[in-house]
């Protein structure tokens, strides 16, 4: 936000305060923000919220598939582990992975988009065709192909999720750059002899920041779902690290007898994604009305 | 003359974020059988909304008709069921809109859009209605009517599109044609052609015409009687000759003075100072008072009623109190 204040001639302060007041009036948006915030609090405070260990096996077979009861409000799984504890700890994985992956994809996408938009010509054409091509491959297939190549780990999942999600941001930023570089203050900066890179960093990126942030927030939900799908397929976060997608998968064998094992992690995913989507929609409506439906 | 249309105290409002905008605020007038009446005023005065209200086509929400009556052949169009109203639209009352490009559906051929109206109201089959539609194309002098029948709107010029609109409007021999700025969006050279065509078809088919325009020059050639509208009300009513000879409302005077005159020195045209008032924020008293060069105390204290002057004229100005 400090970058925004000296972005030059675009009255960012007014924009932001007007945006926030619009955001606060939107009940859905505020609900989304509250959900997202609560999730982060839960993730941080997980050890305080449950006495159980999310990874160590329980006293088998005595504690296997216990239905929800006092002591285990959401029941236990196949290995006698407390489902609530695993759901709480699982939020750490989901939130960390999605946040970092979005950060990677946004940074990479912004750089590519800004380069294409600013350089123009052949650079633009080549970069954008690559973007088109990558976007033609469904993300999950792209992820799976990459996963088949490397050995699985959490950092790899983060990098892959980030590396397969930058294309839309690149397109968005390129469009913004093309629009903004025609504006007078950029031309003035260029006429004053400011270097190209300097112009890009000092003016273009800060000006597209709102758009990027809004788009990034809207993308987090999708990334959480993608990570969950990978883990569900057994190709994501390696066990026994508690991840929601894998927990849903883990309950598949005993769906009829122990429905709680799959149900609650699934609800956790849904609530998180809904929270981010509401939050993102609210941000978009408040700060970037043009993009709205 | 028999009265065909009698609009009485029509009120149409729009709900906006800042309050209720009374865009048409008590409009009353009559149109006789076969008569041509001009409804004149600056943009935003409520003349188009008056037309849409007669047809019950005001977009709801945000707009709604809040009161008054529209008697058409003695029947109040504002109270009949929607089913009945649909039989009136395009059949007994037709309308030609200002923008011939956006008013035609881009994904259907021009012919189909005319044919559809004929088939609907005259209960004709596809072949018969098509034959009549081609006939209508010929009537409005679209060259090559059979070919043009199959053209899409984007393949035609503005003038041709407006001819299609006119063909559509006249296809069921309506008793009343409302022409809402029919030539405004067209090139100057085409404008005259369209107006001539309307005049000619009016003579031929004998319908009444309510011509809505901001252009007094157009009115002078076309109509028998003029209604001048300002800020949602009719401020003056007069036969066309009388209006030009001796306007009875300061607003009409201003409009006439802003017309370029033949033979007059090519000096600056006088303009009425200021703007049409915001319907959410009308001046107290007379609506024209903030722009009127002849304002006096009375104008600020109360809104003038329509004062009858002579047999066929009326003016909404305190200066005419007592018919002077």
């Amino acid at each position, binding site marked *: 936000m400090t970058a925004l204040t000296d972005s030059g001639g675009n009255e960012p302060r007014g924009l932001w305060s007007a945006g926030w007041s619009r955001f606060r009036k939107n009940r859905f948006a505020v609900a989304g923000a509250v959900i997202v915030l609560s999730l982060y609090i839960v993730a941080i405070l997980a050890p305080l919220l449950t006495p159980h260990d999310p990874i160590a096996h329980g006293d088998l077979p005595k504690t296997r598939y216990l239905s929800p009861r006092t002591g285990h409000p959401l029941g236990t799984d196949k290995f006698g582990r407390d489902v609530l504890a695993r759901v709480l700890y699982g939020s750490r994985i989901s939130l960390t992975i999605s946040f970092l992956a979005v950060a990677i994809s946004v940074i990479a996408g912004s750089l590519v988009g800004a380069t294409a938009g600013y350089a123009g010509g052949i650079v633009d054409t080549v970069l954008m065709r690559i973007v088109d091509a990558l976007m033609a491959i469904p993300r999950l297939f792209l992820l799976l192909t990459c996963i088949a190549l490397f050995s699985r780990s959490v950092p790899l999942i983060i990098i892959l999720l980030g590396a397969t999600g930058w294309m839309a941001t690149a397109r968005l930023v390129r469009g913004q750059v093309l629009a903004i570089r025609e504006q007078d203050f950029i031309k003035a900066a260029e006429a004053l002899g400011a270097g190209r890179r300097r112009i890009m960093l000092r003016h273009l990126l800060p000006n597209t920041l709102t758009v990027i942030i809004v788009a990034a927030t809207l993308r987090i939900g999708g990334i959480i779902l993608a990570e969950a799908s990978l883990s569900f397929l057994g190709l994501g976060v390696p066990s026994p690290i508690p991840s929601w997608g894998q927990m849903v998968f883990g309950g598949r064998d005993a769906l*009829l007898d122990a429905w709680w094992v799959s149900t609650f992690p699934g609800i956790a995913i849904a609530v998180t994604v809904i929270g981010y*989507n509401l939050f993102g929609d609210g941000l978009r409506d408040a700060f970037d009305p043009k993009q709205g439906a | 003359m028999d009265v065909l249309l009698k609009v009485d105290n029509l009120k149409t409002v729009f709900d906006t974020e800042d309050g209720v905008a009374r865009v048409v605020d008590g409009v009353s007038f009559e149109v006789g059988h076969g008569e041509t009446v001009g409804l004149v005023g600056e943009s935003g005065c409520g003349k188009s909304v008056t037309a849409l209200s007669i047809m019950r086509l005001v977009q709801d929400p945000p707009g709604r008709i809040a009161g008054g009556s529209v008697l058409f052949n003695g029947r109040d169009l504002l109270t009949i069921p929607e089913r009945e109203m649909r039989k009136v639209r395009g059949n007994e009352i037709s309308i030609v809109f200002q923008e011939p490009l956006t008013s035609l559906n881009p994904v259907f051929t021009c012919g189909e859009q005319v044919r559809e109206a004929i088939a609907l109201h005259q209960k004709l089959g596809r072949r018969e209605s098509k034959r009549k539609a081609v006939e209508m194309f010929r009537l409005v002098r679209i060259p090559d009517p059979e070919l043009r029948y199959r053209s899409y709107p984007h393949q035609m010029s503005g003038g041709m599109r407006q001819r299609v609109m006119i063909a559509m409007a006249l296809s069921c021999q309506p008793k009343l044609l409302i022409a809402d700025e029919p030539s405004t969006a067209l090139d100057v050279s085409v404008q005259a052609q369209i107006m001539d065509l309307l005049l000619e078809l009016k003579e031929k088919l004998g319908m009444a015409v309510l011509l809505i325009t901001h252009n007094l020059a157009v009115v002078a050639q076309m109509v028998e009687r003029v209604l001048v509208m300002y800020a949602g009300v009719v401020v003056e009513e007069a036969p066309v000759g009388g209006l030009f000879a001796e306007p009875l409302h300061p607003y009409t005077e201003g409009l006439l003075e802003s017309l370029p005159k033949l033979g007059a020195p090519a000096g600056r045209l006088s303009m009425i100072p200021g703007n049409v008032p915001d319907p959410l924020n009308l001046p107290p008293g007379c609506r024209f008072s903030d722009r009127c060069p002849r304002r006096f105390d009375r104008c600020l204290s109360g809104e003038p009623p329509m004062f009858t002057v002579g047999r066929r004229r009326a003016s909404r100005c305190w200066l005419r109190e007592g018919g002077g």
Partner: protein
Amino acid sequence: MARFLARRLVQSLLLVFIIITINFFLLHLAPGDPLARYYHPDIAPETIELMREKLGLDRPLIEQYVKWIWSFARGDFGISLQYNRPVASLLAESIPNTLRLTAGALMLYIIIGVALGITSAVKRYSLFDRVSTVAALFVYSIPSFWLALMLILFFSLKLGLLPSSHMQSIGIEGAGHFAMFVDRLRHIVLPAFVLGVASAAAMARYMRGSMIDVLGEDYIRTARAKGLPDRKVFLKHAFRNALLPVVTIIGLSLPFLLGGSVVIEKIFSWPGMGRLTVDAIHARDYPVVLAVNFIVAVMVILGNLLADIGYACLDPRIVYTRVGESK
């Protein structure tokens, strides 16, 4: 029209070419010997040496690249390590199944999405509109695999109404055409619904927005001024115009559906490309993975091409604006 098609075709071919290249680089970008990924307990070292020779991995990179493009362009994707069969024949078996599932989902979501979207737009701000807005958000946020499990739990395990896996019942072949058709229909309902429901939600939102935009157009007022009944105004005059932007969305939804089919096929044991891929990854069957990656991309590009053609058919303006000036 012909020129527009030709241009889009050339663009599509270019994209396919780039994708083959990306695949090539993915293989070579991976650390170490590309063939290291082929090491598998079931595969004799001689086979690998044979492959190295066959793939020309001892040749210069540029030559490998040209060869790679040539073989992909001919549909020669190599031999599956897992099944020891040509990848192409594996694909020939699984592609129709995936297409059937995707087509089912596509039909389902277009019908549901369009119907809901139009109703929402026509009855804007009504209770129906509000409920469907909120419902769309929820549906869009639910993980598909979880929804699938919940539906299986409810409809298959608890109620026993619908089968939970495979494309048809075992031994149904002898039961006559109609019985077989019903059986297959029953098998496709759940997977197609789960696969399409999120897209239906998105579709409903787009359709609603598009329809609302169109309903504000002048030509809708003209249609009303003609005396047309609402039904005709909405379904004839508004619908076709509102459909235009949505056709593009249908094209764009293909990657989403094909990606989703991976998870759905796995859950419902549907013998399609998605399941083939997941199994191939677990078995490190690399030629299969790359081939599927390529085929899916081609399908998506083809889908977009079809969407463009559909758009051109629906909108008479497009042909003229593309082929130079109007008239």
